[in-house]
């Protein structure tokens, strides 16, 4: 068996939620949502829906037996709207019928009257009106106010970064089956099985043990199924529980795009001060985060923006303020990077502007200020085992920066209407959930009498390769062939109280838990071997490559024989283990602490080509030196790196989420919302794994990969800006992502509006 269900995928046999065989008499649910961004629900008439042939039932908020609440930390989100609606696409009713089509038709037939109320979409307006999700937070170090005087150059301005739709290829989906005990089993495409379990129990008024949540695998998540898979699972559960029949709920792409939240757009004000040599001395930034209508994960995402406000740079005087604004858009949510990319983008914009003011290249400022051991982050954590400068230096040499710059200059000299630009992008990303309590996970390992192994963990496989990594961990500890090891689906009945598979922590937390459980079993097996062989102490026994050695000598025992023998010796061959990341803490009153187990570092060189007549940009190359620690699975890590870069470039250059004046999503299909296809990916992606990069806190000295590569995409924006400047040095280019061809043309030809 190969990791990541390789063979299942290429045969089309991998079962995703919507593929599962259900009992013949299962039903389908569809959702009726609000068409108004903010308003009072005057009436909701379900009679026309009930009249549609094949309809079983329509459920509204009144039909929820428990609490109508899906909020996580801030309880502000009803599953089904009651008297007020707060965004277009907010669920009002669930319709259940014998086909998905009938259910959808009936959902449309429901008569809803809503009296509109004033709606807010803009963060400045929300802030002015005090419409906030949580009180503002401030991270600070040094003394910014007095530092401005020491600066030779101070630049300031505003940066806008756009939203981003997840477009996991598998849309949100769940099905639920009633159990004979009056509970419910839910199969959900979620990154947070325990969260789904908790919410379903809350909605139905059941103890959590009556709710089992199972996750087979996800067709992509990227954060979009961390908090926002819960709703659909809860709706399917409610319907199944009320009707005592299996119910499936799968959103269409259009429904998914309109009902679910996206990456948070940010509007940020910055002020950056530097000395004459380009040392960054003081940085002040205020992030206005567009949280949408409910809290969801917005405060946590904003917190990560504050953590990453200074990216990979040492800045002594910092004041970073985060304001999470409540607006009437669908609740924005986690998306790869979790607020980090938004923060990094602002500082890079500030550096770009400062470079212009100082008459230097941005890369000179970047390089001068890179973090090193002994520096401190504004939240107090000390920088240790820092590999920022090494990554930068290796990237410069390996990819021959000077030659690259020369080529770009020559190209630009030769070409009037095509220009190239080259930018560097150093990144630093903290690894751990910033909510310390989430940094725990469980593993449950079963060894069967034939020597095969089944492992359950808290991790959800969504293409990030976590199962392959866990399999590798177990294979190394047991010293057996990976093919013997199977990763089970993720289930709340096997592991309780799981964290979401998010924050790039999946491999570390679950890998460590698996390691501990396997070690337990190995100890017991060694005891059993010692007893059987009769003349050795357990510590003299070694299992190596499926064979058993005593004091270094081969014995007649193999893995299979040993397992079998241990069984007859009545030795337990299953183990459960729990892992909690040590030595991390954070005090939310002082905003100081050491919240991360470690940091991922790296630097990318990004090269862009611009067609100055059409405004279209292509990324010629992204060349990266990245600190993977001692990679646990280079193939998986490489895939994560490439995929993250493609998504990051998409966010910066291509993907534009637009709403109309009434809060309705305009870019609600894949025809109007463009994600990278095979034509728009970088012409070349080179990845160099930094050598000698042991990472003690990581599993087997590795570093996790998931989110950090996304950040390299930001380099694409600045490579494009360089190309634009080469064409028109005096261009006034707004810091506004995505930098679409329209925006490029508007900046290159100001005043040349079409007539």
């Amino acid at each position, binding site marked *: 068996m190969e990791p990541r269900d390789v063979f299942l995928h*290429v*045969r*089309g046999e991998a079962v995703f939620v*919507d593929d599962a065989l259900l009992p013949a008499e299962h039903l389908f649910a569809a959702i009726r949502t609000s068409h108004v961004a903010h308003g009072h629900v005057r009436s909701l008439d379900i009679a026309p829906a009930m009249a549609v042939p094949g309809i079983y039932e329509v459920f509204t908020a009144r039909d929820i037996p428990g609490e109508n609440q899906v909020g996580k930390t801030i309880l502000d989100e009803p599953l089904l709207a009651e008297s007020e609606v707060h965004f277009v696409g907010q669920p009002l009713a669930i319709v259940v019928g014998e086909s998905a089509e009938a259910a959808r038709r009936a959902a449309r037939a429901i008569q809803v009257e809503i009296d509109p109320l004033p709606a807010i979409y803009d963060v400045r307006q929300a802030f002015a009106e005090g419409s906030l999700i949580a009180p503002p937070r401030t991270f600070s170090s040094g003394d910014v106010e007095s530092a401005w005087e020491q600066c030779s150059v101070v630049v300031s301005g505003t940066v806008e970064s756009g939203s981003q739709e997840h477009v996991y290829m598998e*849309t949100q989906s769940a099905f639920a089956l009633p159990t004979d005990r009056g509970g419910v089993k839910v199969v959900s495409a979620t990154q947070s099985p325990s969260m789904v379990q908790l919410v379903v129990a809350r909605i139905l008024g059941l103890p959590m043990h009556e709710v089992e949540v199972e996750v087979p695998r996800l067709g992509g998540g990227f954060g979009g199924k961390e908090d926002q898979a819960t709703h659909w699972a809860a709706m399917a559960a409610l319907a199944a529980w009320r009707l005592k029949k299996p119910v499936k709920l799968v959103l269409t792409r259009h429904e998914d795009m309109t009902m679910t939240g996206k990456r948070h757009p940010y509007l940020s004000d910055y002020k950056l001060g530097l000395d004459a040599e380009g040392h960054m001395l003081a940085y002040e930034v205020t992030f206005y985060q567009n949280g949408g209508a409910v809290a969801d994960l917005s405060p946590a995402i904003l917190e990560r923006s504050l953590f990453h406000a200074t990216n990979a740079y040492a800045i002594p005087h910092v004041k970073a303020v985060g304001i999470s604004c409540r607006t009437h858009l669908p609740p924005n949510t986690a998306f790869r990077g979790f607020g980090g990319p938004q923060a990094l983008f602002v500082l890079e914009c500030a550096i770009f502007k400062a470079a212009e003011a100082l008459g230097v290249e941005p890369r000179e400022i970047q390089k001068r200020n890179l973090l090193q051991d002994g520096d401190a982050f504004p939240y107090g954590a000390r920088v240790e085992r820092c590999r920022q400068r090494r990554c930068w230096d290796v990237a410069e040499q390996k990819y021959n920066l000077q030659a690259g710059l020369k080529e770009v200059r020559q190209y630009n000299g030769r070409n009037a209407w095509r220009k190239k630009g080259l930018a560097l992008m150093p990144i630093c990303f903290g690894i751990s959930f910033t909510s310390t309590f989430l940094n725990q996970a469980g593993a449950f390992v079963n060894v069967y009498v034939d020597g095969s192994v089944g492992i359950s963990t808290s991790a959800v496989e969504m293409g990030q390769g976590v199962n392959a990594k866990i399999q590798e961990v177990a294979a190394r500890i047991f010293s057996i062939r990976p093919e013997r090891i199977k990763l089970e689906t993720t289930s709340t009945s096997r592991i309780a109280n799981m964290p979401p598979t998010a924050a790039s922590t999946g491999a570390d937390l679950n890998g460590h838990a698996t390691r501990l459980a396997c070690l337990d079993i190995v100890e017991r097996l060694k005891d059993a071997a010692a007893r059987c062989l009769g003349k050795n102490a357990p510590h003299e026994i070694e299992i190596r490559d499926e064979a058993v050695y005593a004091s270094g000598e081969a014995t007649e025992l193999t893995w299979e024989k040993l397992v079998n023998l241990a069984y007859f010796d009545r030795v337990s061959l299953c183990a459960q283990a729990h892992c909690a990341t040590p030595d991390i803490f954070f005090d939310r009153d002082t905003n100081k602490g050491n919240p991360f187990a470690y940091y991922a570092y790296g630097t990318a060189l990004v090269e862009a080509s611009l067609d100055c007549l059409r405004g279209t940009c292509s990324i010629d190359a992204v060349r990266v030196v990245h600190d993977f620690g001692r990679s646990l699975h280079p193939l998986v890590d490489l895939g994560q790196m490439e995929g993250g870069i493609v998504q990051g470039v998409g966010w910066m250059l291509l993907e534009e989420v637009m709403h109309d004046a009434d809060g309705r999503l305009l870019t609600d299909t894949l025809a109007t919302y463009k*994600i990278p296809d095979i034509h728009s990916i970088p012409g070349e992606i080179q990845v160099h794994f930094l050598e000698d990069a042991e990472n003690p806190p990581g599993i087997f000295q590795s570093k996790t990969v998931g989110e950090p590569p996304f950040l390299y995409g930001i380099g694409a924006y600045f490579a494009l800006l360089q190309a634009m400047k080469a064409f028109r040095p005096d261009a006034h280019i707004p810091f506004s992502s995505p930098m679409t061809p329209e925006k490029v043309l508007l900046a290159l030809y100001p005043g040349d509006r079409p007539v």
Partner: protein
Amino acid sequence: MTQKHEPGECRCSRGLTRRGFLSTVGAGVAVASAAGKLAAQPAASQGADVLPSAEMTPITLNINGRTHRLLVEPRWSLLFVLRERLGLTGTKVGCERGECGACTVLMDDLPRYACMTLAVEAQGSEITTLEGLMRGEELGGVQQAFVEEDAFQCGYCTPGQIMAVEGLLRAHPEPSQEEIQMGLSGNLCRCGAYVHIFKAAGRAAQLKRGQ
């Protein structure tokens, strides 16, 4: 109800899909093909009958070499019938609007979006889905190439990508870089495994030639 496809006519583009779709339901008059040409296609000349909408119609589909007789509503898509009536869930749903490629199958060796193809329209054609690429227990060449090149992450787009490559190679056994790019241009992969998918297409061509 059968619709003949001229081999050689925009083999790996999706223009054919939409044109076929429109003419079959009797609405096609002048629809742009992917090549940008305008093709006038009066419905009658294609022999398309207008079927009563909600009534079940018996059809015979040839899928992966097996004949299936079934009753369908004329408006059901091939995708719906494959997944919901025949249980062939290897073909995935990504958008149901011809925008993502997750549902790609072959009809008479040409890649088609199954979501944009009516089941009634697929009569008389040889339909191949991912399940049909297996050679017994052995992987087909394209499947093998996807394994070798690690051409996926979450695997959700994979069936469609494999079918697009299969269709490409049936038309162009030795595709150029551009042809591979064109052949894959109708299939999205949000995990961003494109570099590997691209390589897998090249490797699959080698495998098919027995190299």
